[in-house]
């Protein structure tokens, strides 16, 4: 009989534990929601010094900027979008032998934690292919960057002449 009581007590104890666990989970749910990685990352990726090179309608231009990741986790730039050109692609310029320079598409760009990745002339850049209009110095355009964790970032870029290269 004692054994039976003990089993019943054990069952009650297990039930209580289950109830306690569920209550804890329900209570912690809002905290968990607020600490989703996406939200956390969004506040840690910032874009600065965004600019576009002047170019004529139907021609190509490039969009440059710096991605600052102040977070402790890495992120990835997946794509760029905008209605300034027919196609938007991430590209990089690379050096070949004997002063030969080439360019190729890059499908994503890793943004390490606590780092700044520069999209700059002669290196990584976002290609604006087939401009829908003339892009003149002083004008401003909105472009969108899509990050794996930080999500969508809307960026305002100013059209300006190039700085001198060192």
């Amino acid at each position, binding site marked *: 009989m004692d054994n039976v009581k003990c089993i019943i007590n054990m069952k009650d104890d297990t039930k209580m534990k289950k109830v306690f666990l569920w209550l804890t989970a329900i209570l912690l749910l809002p905290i968990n929601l607020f600490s989703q990685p996406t939200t956390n990352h969004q506040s840690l990726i910032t874009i600065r010094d965004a600019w576009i090179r002047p170019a004529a309608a139907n021609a190509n231009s490039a969009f440059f900027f710096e991605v600052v990741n102040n977070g402790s986790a890495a992120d990835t730039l997946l794509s760029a979008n905008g209605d300034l050109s027919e196609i938007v692609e991430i590209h990089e310029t690379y050096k070949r032998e004997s002063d030969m320079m080439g*360019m190729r598409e890059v499908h994503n760009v890793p943004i390490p934690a606590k780092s700044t990745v520069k999209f700059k002339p002669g290196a990584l850049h976002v290609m604006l292919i087939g401009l829908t209009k003339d892009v003149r110095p002083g004008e401003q355009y909105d472009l969108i960057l899509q990050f794996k964790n930080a999500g969508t970032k809307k960026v305002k870029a100013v059209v300006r002449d190039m700085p001198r290269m060192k």
Partner: protein
Amino acid sequence: MKKLLLILNLGFLLYACKEKLPVIEDLERAKFKLVDQYNNEVTFPEFVKGKLVVMNYIFTNCPDICPLSTNNMRLIQERIKKDKINGVEFVSISFDPLQDSPQVLRKFAGIRNLDLSNWTFLTGEKPVIDSFMRKMGIVAVIGDSTVFKDGRKIYYYTHTDRIQLIDKEGKIRKNYKGSTIDVSEIVADVKSLQ
């Protein structure tokens, strides 16, 4: 005696300059029938004979290296003007003549507000352009391409990134990396060939 030393010194300086800027290619006998940004026919190097020429090589669909090189041409032009150096012509020639018509070149220059008072953009028939590039030591090969929704295709060249300095006799005297050229260096070279 002082005069003799002065003459010897000048002679040495001239010799040193020649050594510093040896002839890379002689274009004196070359004759390329080309077209400028206004659709005028020009013969190179005849149309710039007697002038120092700063030249670069571009294709207007190039989003990165060619605009950098062209921007450096602008910086050199501004510096030459500031230093009051006369008799220098600037020439940009496209190695993509099928895309880069005179009108496209004019627009390329116009959108950048380039000073075309002593700067000419050139294009021409493809065989002439190909022959020109071989003579000037420029390599341009089609690499990546992009296809638009309507099927149009544009392509990008892997190409020599170069600005050249040509003397008054039509001889190539120095090659520089177009996108990263040191403006002070080429301006000093221009002065040495004046």
